[in-house]
């Protein structure tokens, strides 16, 4: 299935990528992160326990499932306000 991924802020700078379209069989956000980290550096260390996840523009957790056409976003803890 195809997934659209967005990266923001420090995380986007680290992996030097703001968005990509990915063909993947990852069934959860956590699985998707593992596939991305398997690319090696800088991907390997760009994700950590504080990395936040959004699926279809709603905050999500690593166990939340993915479907074809989903929009997934990864970013550091937010600092607005």
């Amino acid at each position, binding site marked *: 299935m195809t997934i659209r991924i*967005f990266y923001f*802020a420090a995380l986007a700078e680290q992996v030097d990528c703001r968005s990509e379209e990915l063909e993947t069989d990852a069934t959860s956000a956590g699985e998707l992160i593992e596939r991305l980290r398997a690319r090696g550096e800088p991907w390997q260390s760009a994700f950590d326990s*504080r990395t936040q996840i959004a699926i279809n523009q709603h905050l999500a957790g690593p166990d939340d499932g993915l479907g074809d056409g989903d929009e997934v976003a990864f970013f550091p803890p*937010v600092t*607005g*306000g």
Partner: protein
Amino acid sequence: MKLIRVQQEDFDAGILLAELRAGRSDIGACVTFTGYVRDLNLDDDVQALRLEHYPGMTEKALEAIVDEAVSRWNLSGAAVIHRVGELRPSDQIVLVAVTSSHRGDAFAACEFIMDYLKTRAPFWKKEQLKDGSSRWVEARSSDDKAAQRWDR
């Protein structure tokens, strides 16, 4: 009445409040929070602040936070305006305004919205320093704690 705005331009709290109160003479209380760019952080002179956000999700996240406030307290209206892009010290960043017939509800809801916004709305601040360098602002555990007070 619910107003959510994410914009580059500055805003006028007075005009927003007038919108929020328009035609309502049953409103007894209005609590607002305004956040400003400070010129100092970690002892470094901040020259400017760049606010990045996640277009599309930002509005949804703010709306969900306001809806949650409306479900928890007795409110007449609530507004959130958040700026993005390049800001300068003393610039307004964010305005949260809540109207109610009860001041306790207005205070609680306004603080709740700010605490949730700080931890759940996809904005990120990058500081431009005097020496030409820049850095991402780090999330603070005190903000996580403030938000957790409202968990249930």
